[in-house]
């Protein structure tokens, strides 16, 4: 394990990969790895991307990774898909949308099955994100499983939550319901090329102004991830949200 940690700090991808497996599979070793990593944590900006299955989370992440790399930031991705309640198996297909970074040593993408995790996350997702943080990744994007209304676990483990919506998911009362719609720091209406995307964005604007316990209204961004439209605005909103949080934290000190 010591050797793996040494290699991790040297920037060895296979060490990062092995360590993620260890924190995922072995509770005891996982705990001691986290203890060793503790002094090196807290540098990465953790961003959760959540929303319904097929809403475009993976494709948005692909776009974000491309832009972050252009600005020189090292990026990690943890992409979670569901585990079968019947057999314990899983089909992890998020990577299909995230190709083109294979020669880049500063991008690390890992798929995880949710296993016993609930709320759209895998139990080990936070630990895996910590491994990538210690590995030197400056932004770590965590993609939840496809979620519906009440899977909100991601809000407790990231700095910034992006909730991804699309046209066709119901009327404005659906958006008024508690749960997922309350946790977004940023809301995305993806598939902006579809009819109604702008209408949904407008309805969201009205509702977002009424969200409780906020200093300000969360930004609402229309994207078409497959055409890489709106991704730049999304990235700017994510970065701005982080800066604001840091400023507030500094003021409170």
């Amino acid at each position: 394990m010591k050797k793996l940690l040494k290699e991790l700090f040297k920037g060895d991808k296979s060490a990062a990969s092995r360590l993620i497996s260890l924190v995922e599979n072995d509770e005891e070793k996982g705990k001691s790895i986290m203890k060793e990593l503790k002094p090196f944590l807290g540098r990465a900006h953790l961003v959760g991307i959540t929303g319904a299955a097929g809403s475009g989370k993976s494709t948005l992440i692909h776009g974000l990774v491309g832009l972050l790399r252009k600005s020189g930031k090292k990026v990690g991705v943890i992409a979670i898909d569901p585990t079968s309640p019947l057999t314990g198996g899983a089909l992890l297909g998020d990577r299909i949308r995230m190709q083109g970074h294979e020669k880049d040593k500063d991008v690390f993408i890992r798929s995880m099955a949710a296993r016993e995790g609930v709320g759209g996350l895998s139990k080990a997702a936070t630990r895996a994100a910590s491994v990538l943080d210690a590995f030197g990744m400056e932004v770590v994007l965590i993609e939840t499983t496809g979620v519906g209304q009440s899977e909100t676990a991601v809000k407790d483990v990231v700095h910034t939550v992006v909730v991804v919506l699309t046209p066709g998911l119901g009327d404005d009362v659906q958006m008024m319901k508690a749960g997922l719609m309350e946790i977004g720091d940023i809301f995305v209406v993806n598939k902006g090329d579809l009819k109604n995307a702008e209408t949904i964005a407008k309805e969201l604007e009205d509702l977002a102004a009424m969200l409780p316990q906020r200093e300000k209204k969360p930004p609402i961004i229309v994207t078409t991830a497959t055409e890489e439209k709106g991704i730049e605005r999304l990235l700017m909103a994510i970065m701005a949200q982080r800066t604001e949080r840091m400023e507030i934290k500094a003021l409170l000190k």
Partner: protein
Amino acid sequence: MNTKSRRFSKNKIRVLLAKAGLDGHDRGIKVIAMALRDAGMEVIYLGLRRTPEEIVNAALEEDVDCIGVSLLSGAHNVLYPEIASLMKKKGLADKPLIGGGIIPEEDMARLRKKGVAKFFTPGAKTEDIVRFIEGAVRKK
């Protein structure tokens, strides 16, 4: 191991599946992906038209136990050896590389020498593929 005990096993078998090169025939590999999923494995499916670099980098980042590559384009004599040599370069030579698709007998023999552990061609039973992977991973 029966289905039930596998469900609760922490060390899940992780398999990377991909189609390499320029063909779009993915029915077979999708059937295999579902069969491995149903056997309790975690299957990372990369989809169509992947390059050897994409496949091997994904295998490295995903810490998989086994790599399965399907090829029906006729480019098997080039792509399998390329994947196998990249795996070696990245320290993944101990992971079994499994091939599938339309591969002539005489090519299979040659490719086995170049690092493909096993081929499953049309007509192969999914149970045999599951059993082979379980056996190969447990042997390590």
